[in-house]
């Protein structure tokens, strides 16, 4: 800090001195005293001889002097018009005793000399670039040469320039800039080795501040009109690279390689790729070659994007292959290259090939393979950055392609295997997300197997999953479960094969995972089963009426179509014939297995409702009574043994009743058996209200509506083994009676527990509900349900309501009013039928 203040003070004083000398210099110029003007200019320039300033501050001082030199130059130009030749001046300024001021003056006069046409440009430039070697101090030398570079701009014997011809040619111009560049680079590199080792960091920072002074030379070379590719490749590039390589300085190599890549035209790089790449292995091991290569590859990729013909040239020159080779050579030579750098190089290569040859999948595979080989033995070494890069690399192919295509790359999983489990998992999630986002269908067994290899960490257990909470697992597994719907084969047979394969993988996971994935797997199976049925029906109807077949099939097999639009029905049939044929029974058997495994998780509710869906499908789509029965039985077992929570029991029973009501496959005996179980479950529910409602619901089991499809008058699907709808008025009435008994019991219980008290009229809404069911059945024409029966109940309920009027809550009151309104509506609609009803 103190040093800093000192330096600031020093700069202030130096700056003052510059001002003072510049003043006298200008004064001398006004008086036309050349000798004095030179004397003061040398004194002014002498301030630049300091070693005390950091490059930043030195630059400030330099700029101040630079501005003043402008005045001097104007004066010199004037001197010439007064008859003093610039040749004399050029000698005169060389009498200055100190080398730094002398050289600044020489540059100033020398450039005027060229401009005035008094001397050959190349002669003066050669002289200047040589004499400036007198300044070996890095900072001072760099600024002096920067001044030379800057002042000589436009005075070079470039092709087409007025200074060419007599004054030299493009080769001289190139030589000049290259020489200056090399000298500057040497100075710049030397800075690194001067001063105490502990200041290394500061020095590097200071050097970075100076890098553009060095790079300017290259910029000017690249801007020469006469710079042809031949000249570049034949002379400029080899000399540049020689300098870059031989300076053995990381910072310089890093910067200069980038400067070369950024500075010269794309076409040059394209044509001189070999030379550029061959320099890379020779650079210091600390140079970030990946950044260099990335720049090069990115440039060429952009070039290709702007000019389609470049793609061809890149192919012709085997650019990709060269990059592959170059990277492996670099890796070989720098055995200690950090994994992160290696991966970054391959990531850049991946970007290149994806940008230039998006169609070349084999390139992607080669990059993956090469990267994997490069990392073989050392792995990522636990470097989080390397891992991040690898994820980026692995993500790239997923960005532009669907996951299935990427899954076909055999080099992908081994490389992915290098990731830590956690990252591998992130990557796996990315694969899943991509598949989901792109709606990719994974339609072959091989792809499915590969996919699960990719996402193994999501599916399988590992020790470090312990720290995952329920929510994390859910979030993850929901993704996997969603993806299962994208596993869609062209034929139902193959579909089941795929689902079986998926299950084999999912099974490896913990129950906590299965809970989320198995329901999805099961529904995939159900969807497949529906396709299977549709396909079979199509075959049958196809046999019957060939002409209509294809149209029907298109309608019926919508899912199949969506899954594999390209697959023709013929191909699908062939695939099934090839051995993966499956029938509904085995499919349902498989679903039963899945459901039971889910029950063991344990997830009884999930298993139970799945069993019910399967039961319905077995009944209504497959017409397999025994299996349907089996599903119900298994569901009942779960209900009895595994569902403990009373609310769950209510919900489960609702589902059982609703499903059974929809099943038409059962013989009377089987149906009775199932219904009896339901009735007994209903009676055993915890709350009277639930018992009552369940009894009402169960009453519907004796009164089925005709199956929906037939009712809508569509072509009836010929489901084998379908029984006619059950219409048993007796049982309906019995069911409702049970409900009434529950209410009566509830009323008594209330009376017993809350004698005289208020607020205990829970049985009343149940009464109203039962009234509504009576009315429902009356409307449906259930024989035993006459207006008289209903009227009797209405009166009972009416009197109950008035008895408990004080306790009546608003809901029940409103319910009763709504029921009365309903009755009025019924009467209005059919006065004859409902004449006897009076609310």
């Amino acid at each position, binding site marked *: 800090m103190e040093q800093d203040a000192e330096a600031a003070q020093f700069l202030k004083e130096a700056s003052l001195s510059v001002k003072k000398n510049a003043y006298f210099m200008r004064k001398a110029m006004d008086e036309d005293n050349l000798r004095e003007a030179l004397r003061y200019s040398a004194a002014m320039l002498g301030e630049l001889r300091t070693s005390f300033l950091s490059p930043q501050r030195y630059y400030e001082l330099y700029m101040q002097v630079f501005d003043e030199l402008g005045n001097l130059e104007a004066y010199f130009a004037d001197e010439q018009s007064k008859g003093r030749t610039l040749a004399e001046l050029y000698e005169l300024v060389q009498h200055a005793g100190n080398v730094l001021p002398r050289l600044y003056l020489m540059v100033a006069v020398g450039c005027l000399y060229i401009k005035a046409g008094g001397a050959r440009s190349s002669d003066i430039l050669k002289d200047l670039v040589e004499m400036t070697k007198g300044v070996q101090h890095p900072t001072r030398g760099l600024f002096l040469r920067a001044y030379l570079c800057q002042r000589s701009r436009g005075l070079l014997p470039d092709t087409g320039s007025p200074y060419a011809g007599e004054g030299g040619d493009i080769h001289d111009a190139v030589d000049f800039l290259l020489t200056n560049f090399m000298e500057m680079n040497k100075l710049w590199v030397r800075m690194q080795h001067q001063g105490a080792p502990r200041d290394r960091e500061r020095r590097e920072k200071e050097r970075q501040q100076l890098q553009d002074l060095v790079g300017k030379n290259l910029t000017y070379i690249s801007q020469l009109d006469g710079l042809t590719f031949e000249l570049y490749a034949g002379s400029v590039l080899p000399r540049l690279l020689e300098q870059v390589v031989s300076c053995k300085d990381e910072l310089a190599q890093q910067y200069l390689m980038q400067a070369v890549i950024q500075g010269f035209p794309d076409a040059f790089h394209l044509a001189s790729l070999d030379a550029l790449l061959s320099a890379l292995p020779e650079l210091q091991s600390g140079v970030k070659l990946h950044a260099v290569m990335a720049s090069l590859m990115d440039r060429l990729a952009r070039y290709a994007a702007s000019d389609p013909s470049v793609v061809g040239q890149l192919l012709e020159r085997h650019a990709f292959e060269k990059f592959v080779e170059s990277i492996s050579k670099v890796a070989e030579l720098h055995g200690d290259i950090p994994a992160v750098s290696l991966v970054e190089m391959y990531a850049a290569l991946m970007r290149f090939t994806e940008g230039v040859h998006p169609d070349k999948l084999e390139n992607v595979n080669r990059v993956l393979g090469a990267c994997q080989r490069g990392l073989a033995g050392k792995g990522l070494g636990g470097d989080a950055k390397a891992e991040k890069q690898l994820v980026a690399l692995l993500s790239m192919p997923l960005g532009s392609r669907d996951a299935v295509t990427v899954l076909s790359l055999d080099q992908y999983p081994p490389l992915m295997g290098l990731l830590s489990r956690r990252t591998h998992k992130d990557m796996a999630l990315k694969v899943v997300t991509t598949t*989901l986002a792109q*709606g990719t269908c994974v339609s072959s067994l091989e792809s499915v197997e590969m996919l699960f290899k990719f996402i193994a960490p999501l599916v399988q257990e590992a020790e470090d999953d312990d720290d995952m909470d329920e*929510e994390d697992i*859910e*979030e993850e597994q*929901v*993704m996997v*479960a*969603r*993806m*299962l*719907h*994208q596993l869609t084969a062209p034929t139902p047979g193959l579909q089941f094969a795929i689902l079986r394969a998926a299950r084999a993988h999912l099974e490896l996971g913990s129950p906590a995972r299965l809970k*989320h994935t198995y*329901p*999805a797997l099961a*529904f995939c199976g*159900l*969807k497949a089963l*529906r396709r299977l049925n549709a396909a079979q029906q199509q075959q049958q109807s196809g046999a019957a009426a060939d002409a209509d077949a294809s149209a029907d099939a298109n309608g019926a097999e*919508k*899912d199949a179509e969506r899954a594999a639009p390209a697959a023709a029905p013929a191909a699908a049939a062939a695939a099934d014939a090839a051995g993966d044929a499956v029938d509904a029974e085995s499919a349902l058997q498989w679903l039963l297995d899945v459901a039971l495994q889910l029950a063991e998780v344990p997830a009884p*509710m*999930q298993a139970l*409702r799945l069993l019910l*869906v399967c039961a*319905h*499908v077995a009944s*209504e*789509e497959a017409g397999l009574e025994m299996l349907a029965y089996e599903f119900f039985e298994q569901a009942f077992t779960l209900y009895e043994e595994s569902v403990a929570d009373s609310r769950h029991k209510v*919900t489960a029973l*609702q*589902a059982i*009743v*609703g499903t059974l*009501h*929809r099943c038409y496959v059962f013989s009377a005996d089987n149906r009775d058996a199932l219904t009896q179980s339901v009735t007994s479950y209903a009676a055993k529910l915890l709350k009277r209200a639930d018992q009552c409602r369940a009894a009402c*619901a169960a009453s*519907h089991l004796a009164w089925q*509506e005709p199956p*929906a499809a037939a009712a809508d008058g569509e072509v009836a*699907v010929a489901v084998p083994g379908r029984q006619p709808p059950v219409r048993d008025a007796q049982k309906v009435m019995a069911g409702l009676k049970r409900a009434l008994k529950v209410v009566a019991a509830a009323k008594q219980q209330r009376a017993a527990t809350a004698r005289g008290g208020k607020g205990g009229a829970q049985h009343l*809404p149940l009464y109203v*509900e039962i009234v*509504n*069911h009576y009315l*429902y059945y009356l*409307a*449906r024409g259930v024989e035993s349900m006459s207006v008289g029966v209903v009227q009797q109940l209405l009166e009972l309920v009416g009197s109950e309501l008035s008895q408990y009027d004080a306790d009546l809550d608003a*809901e029940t009151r*409103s*319910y009763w*009013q*709504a*029921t*009365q*309104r*309903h009755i*009025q*509506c019924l009467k209005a609609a059919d006065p004859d039928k409902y004449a006897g009803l009076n609310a």
Partner: protein
Amino acid sequence: MVLVLCIGDIHIPHRATDIPAKFRELLKPGKIHHVLCTGNLCSKSMLEFLRGICSDVKVVQGDFDDFESPEHLVVELAGFKVGVCHGHQVVPWGDREALAILQRQMGADILVTGHTHEFKAAVYEELLQVNPGSATGAYSATSQEAVQPSFVLMDLEGGKATIYVYQLVDGEVKVEKIDHTKAAAAATAVTA
């Protein structure tokens, strides 16, 4: 005007991968005032999705939901009493008269239920019943037909309900409009 989204039977991840992209585009935050969900979201992430559309989300319990929600609920919206229930509890499933029993019990001007995966809007005894169908077109055991994804948007204002049905048919969104006026009788009690 009050815009109410009725949506349900999403069944992600059990039966479907995602809400159709075209629906997602329509269901942008900031337009809808209330969401009534008929249940069977099946994953919490879908609940989050709904909450992203509008902060006021009411959900009832579906038969495949593993998180706890009310069996049914009634909300007052723009002068309408709207009842919501998943519907698997009502036997026979989707039956108009059976649902009417529930509707009377709830005293609802509009009853929103799901479960059948089939859009339906019916007026029974001057009361409106709406089923928004399945937003994902999820597999349904009861319907052998391929299910069309659908949801309903209700515009409630001054005793008038305009029902917009959004259906995805062959990849295109189709909108139908149904007008309904609240029954005058519903407001008056029969017994004094």
